[in-house]
């Protein structure tokens, strides 16, 4: 490590790695093409899978004729649901939630299909080319059952049912209540509201989903390489489904090229590849092409929210009510359930604000689309969009500045821990501090002056603010998904020093781009007193790491980091005990730093390597009872977890000619607690905001009335490209959290704040037309339509 990467370069004796902008240790491998992704695996003579997918949105499968495909060149097997029926047990996304129907996860569509893109038949051949050739020879007779393409029509009494056994298309319904919302709204000085909509998104990781199942005939064992961010959950689910013990089912998530949520659930193809590998006794490969990835990986958002907020005359928000209709797609996804996204919306709608009374009702309804699942931000991009729009509408109605109305309503320093109206408890976080810091960094007053000048020239210049808070690194007291039985509350670190003095730190938390190999090593280097370069972090391999549910919900820095700290402390003690023998010094007089144990105040020292040699390799240096393996593990549970918060401020200009939105300025002030690596934190903010810009301005999965996907390619599913992403200023408020290390999770925040801030900025820019922005993405043709409507209205009702 170079000196300039140290937090305090002057502090030579105790270099601190936590807080230092250390370059990611995984990058040289990944950037030079030396990473190993799932598709890079080269098992012995693998077979390749291609899926025949449904072109029908909702239909009974009357007959499948695979005869021609079976005899096609290179084809080894053709499997339908019927062929594998006895090879697995369905995986059920269980939850204790009332009013929830758990749809089983099956490897192939059985009996009927429920969305376009659902896998019906697997063709296994000697190459993907030949497999795809054979797929074309499969004939399927369907009996159409009627497409259910929108959530509003799915709840109609005469709507076709996707899951007849459920008796309804409403797969989940829930309501939160606190106080007397009706009375508070009636008594409010100002009431604002509207119908808000966030359309469907694709998570769109650079690496599409990919699975390689390697069959070991000697042991009848399978190693599944999977592009998953929850390899532990995948392992347990497949083990249970296939009746294959962990000793014969190893699951490895090697280098994973992004997820954004799309690789955070168990997939039918993941089950199928293991079933087929065992059935055929062969190694198998499948990588989704982009079309398959967009049309069969979990999707996001798709909610309509009718919301109303009441303020008193001083601009204090006193009541909030919302009805959320979530279009959850055809299935409830494992393990998170279809409640994950829409229920989170009602959980987080009150946001960081002290709203007295609340009613939030949610229905998640089945439609003929791929299931929704986790997506960076989960629920909060929409809840923040709605609440922050309401705050701005309130400010406008009351003649208050948007910053001022937020300042009056945010939970303040002395009021933590604070339980908001939906029941979520915020721990001490810099809510108001973020608001103030963002305002200052953005030069808010000057921006308003600039806006006034622009308005004089007839330009559509707007400023948008969004404040939000999120739960991160949550422990065992709260389930990540409502009522889900899987333990998401703890994580284990196992740190060992081998006989050469090298340190291996094994973590269950997987990495799919977060840089955990770097940040976890930074923590261990400090807490163990080790040399950063000596530490190797290993992740994602069920044979080599402790059981873990994976990386999601902004948990890995908090839970993995906390486990790293505690395990380091245990191992530190062991090293000190050995060193005290070797140095003939008191345990308490020994200090560990930079891979050496030193007697404080002297130059007497032994390296970790010498310590290791004494423990493992020398016959006589240590008495037998002192030869204790240099290894420690700790399972850390942050119980409640912690809060993270931020304020985003953005200045935009709408070009009235093209209706394009140009972002002039983007500022994020965020509180992620103790920063482990500021370079990685900034990168997470930049990437998150870029994704939020996509949600705000570009991205939309468009399904027509027949539930056919119209934006299935990257020509039609628009993501922002580099020129669309502005420079960003990121300000860090490092208020220490209550968890080990004082960390807070921060990988999702950018995506939570950006859509709301941009929506508010566009609404502000279009305020001369009195236009309400209540649907995202606000793409140019929508802005054009809104302006045209407003002009028409103005013509009809001249003031």
């Amino acid at each position: 490590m170079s000196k300039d990467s140290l937090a305090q370069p002057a502090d030579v004796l105790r270099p601190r790695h936590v807080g230092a902008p250390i370059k990611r240790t995984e990058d040289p491998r990944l950037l030079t093409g030396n990473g190993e992704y799932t598709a890079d695996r080269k098992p012995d003579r693998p077979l390749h899978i291609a899926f025949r997918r449904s072109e029908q949105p909702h239909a009974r499968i009357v007959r499948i004729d695979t005869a021609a495909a079976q005899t096609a060149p290179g084809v080894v097997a053709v499997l339908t649901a019927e062929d594998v029926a006895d090879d697995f047990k369905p995986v059920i996304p269980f939850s204790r939630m009332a009013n929830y129907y758990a749809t089983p996860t099956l490897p192939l569509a059985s009996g009927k299909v429920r969305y376009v893109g659902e896998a019906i038949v697997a063709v296994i051949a000697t190459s993907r080319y030949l497999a795809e050739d054979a797929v074309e020879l499969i004939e399927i007779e369907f009996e159409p059952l009627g497409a259910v393409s929108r959530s509003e029509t799915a709840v109609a009494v005469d709507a076709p049912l996707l899951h007849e056994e459920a008796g309804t298309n409403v797969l989940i319904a829930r309501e939160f209540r606190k106080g007397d919302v009706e009375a508070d709204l009636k008594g409010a000085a100002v009431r604002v509201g509207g119908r808000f909509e966030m359309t469907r998104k694709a998570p769109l990781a650079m690496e599409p989903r990919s699975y390689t199942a390697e069959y070991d005939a000697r042991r009848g064992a399978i190693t599944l390489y999977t592009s998953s961010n929850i390899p532990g959950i995948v392992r347990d689910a497949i083990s249970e489904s296939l009746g294959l013990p962990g000793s014969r089912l190893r699951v490895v998530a090697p280098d994973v090229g992004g997820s954004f949520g799309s690789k955070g659930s168990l997939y039918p193809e993941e089950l199928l590849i293991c079933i087929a590998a065992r059935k055929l006794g062969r190694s198998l490969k499948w990588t989704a092409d982009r079309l398959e990835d967009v049309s069969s990986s979990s999707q996001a958002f798709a909610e309509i929210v009718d919301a109303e907020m009441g303020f008193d005359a001083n601009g204090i928000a006193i009541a909030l009510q919302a009805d959320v209709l979530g279009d959850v797609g055809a299935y409830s996804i494992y393990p998170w359930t279809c409640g994950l996204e829409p229920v989170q919306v009602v959980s987080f709608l009150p946001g960081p604000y002290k709203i007295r009374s609340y009613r939030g009702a949610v229905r998640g309804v089945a439609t003929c689309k791929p299931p929704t699942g986790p997506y960076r931000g989960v629920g909060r991009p929409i809840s923040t969009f709605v609440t922050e729009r309401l705050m701005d509408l309130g400010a406008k109605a009351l003649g208050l500045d948007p910053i001022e109305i937020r300042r009056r309503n945010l939970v303040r320093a002395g009021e933590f821990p604070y339980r908001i109206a939906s029941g979520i408890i915020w721990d001490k976080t810099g809510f108001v501090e973020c608001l103030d810091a963002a305002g200052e960094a953005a030069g808010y007053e000057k921006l308003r002056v600039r806006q006034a000048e622009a308005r004089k020239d007839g330009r559509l210049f707007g400023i948008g603010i969004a404040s939000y808070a999120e739960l991160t690194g949550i422990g065992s007291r709260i389930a990540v998904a409502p009522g889900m039985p899987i333990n998401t509350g703890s994580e284990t670190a196992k740190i060992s020093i081998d006989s050469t003095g090298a340190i291996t730190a094994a973590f269950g938390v997987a990495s799919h781009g977060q840089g955990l190999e770097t940040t976890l090593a930074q923590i261990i280097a400090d807490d163990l007193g080790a040399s950063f370069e000596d530490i190797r972090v290993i992740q994602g391999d069920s044979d080599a790491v402790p059981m873990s549910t994976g990386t999601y919900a902004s948990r890995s820095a908090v839970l993995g980091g906390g486990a790293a700290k505690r395990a380091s402390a245990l191992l530190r003690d062991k090293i000190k005990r050995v060193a005290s023998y070797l140095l003939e010094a008191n345990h308490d007089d020994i200090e560990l730093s930079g891979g050496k144990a030193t007697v404080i105040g002297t130059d007497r020292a032994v390296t970790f390597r010498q310590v290791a040699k004494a423990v493992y390799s020398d016959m006589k240096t240590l008495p037998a009872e002192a030869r204790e393996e240099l290894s420690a593990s700790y399972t850390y549970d942050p119980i409640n977890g912690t809060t993270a918060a931020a304020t985003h401020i953005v200045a935009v200009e709408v070009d009235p000619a093209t209706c394009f939105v140009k972002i002039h300025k983007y500022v994020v002030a965020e509180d992620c607690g103790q920063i482990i690596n500021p370079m990685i934190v900034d990168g997470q903010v930049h990437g998150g905001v870029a994704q939020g810009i996509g949600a705000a301005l570009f991205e939309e999965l468009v399904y027509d009335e027949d539930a056919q996907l119209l934006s299935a390619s990257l020509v039609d599913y628009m993501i922002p490209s580099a020129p669309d992403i502005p420079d960003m200023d990121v300000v860090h408020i490092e208020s220490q959290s209550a968890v080990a290390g004082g960390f807070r999770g921060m990988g999702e925040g950018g995506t939570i704040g950006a859509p709301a801030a941009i929506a508010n900025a566009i609404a502000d820019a279009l305020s001369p037309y009195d236009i309400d922005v209540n649907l995202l993405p606000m793409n140019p043709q929508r802005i054009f339509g809104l302006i045209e409507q407003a002009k028409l209205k103005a013509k009809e009702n001249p003031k």
Partner: protein
Amino acid sequence: MKPARFEYIPPTTLEAAVAALAAANGEGKILAGGQSLLPLLNFRMARPAVLVDLNGMKELSFIELRGENVAIGALTRHREIEHSPLIASRLPVMSAAIRHVAHLAIRNRGTIGGSLSHADPAAELPMMAMFYGASLTVQGPAGRRTIAAKDFFVDALTNCLEPEDIVVEIEFPILQHDGWAFEEVARRFGDFALASIAVSIRRGQFGVGEARVAVMGVADTPLRLEHVEQRLCEIAVDGRTPDRFAEMVTSSVSPNSDVHASAEYRKHLLGELAKRAMQTVLAVKG
């Protein structure tokens, strides 16, 4: 997403290429830059039995001045057109338009013959062929013939060629103009155009003497708006000309709606671009 089986033939002469296409009995396709064809193959939307690769024929790659025309070989890459001083000085509108063609990697591979043959209604080079009134030289089993751009583009992604025809070169007449403009709006840098317009004028004794107007993204083929060109020569040039021009242009197209833009929005964009283009054109002193 793998292509269906096909036979690959890399001929070294045009005659052999035409023969290979003729032997394929309508089931042949020409591979030039492959930037549009390969995705179509991978989606299995195109499934030729034979792929005839022209890339071995370096003689099809050139840009040269030929009297009052600039001739461009069919295999010339977009990137070569973009960097050609000859194009910049003689076909400045084309030089401006080519910068809007996709992204660098695509411009490195894509060819003018391929782009014209693909006939995408929102692609710049077909529009330039219409704008300049280019003529395409085509080699078929009966030898060479010349086709005017206006006869070449039949429909979206459809040209007038027979399956065994190969575009060999394109001649672009050099236009005399006192002012020109190229305007395009795409959703993102490098995307296909939502709307685009190219305009050039020669000043006459009174107002505009000659005009050239072409648009794209607003119909199934790029369009040259000859009646608008004519009208421009009939009206007085004053401060209202850009608005009047925009009105003329938008009233002569009826675009379709798709996921990227409604018909109304496309029309609006075209009007804005037309106005902007005419302001630029008239700002240049004659």
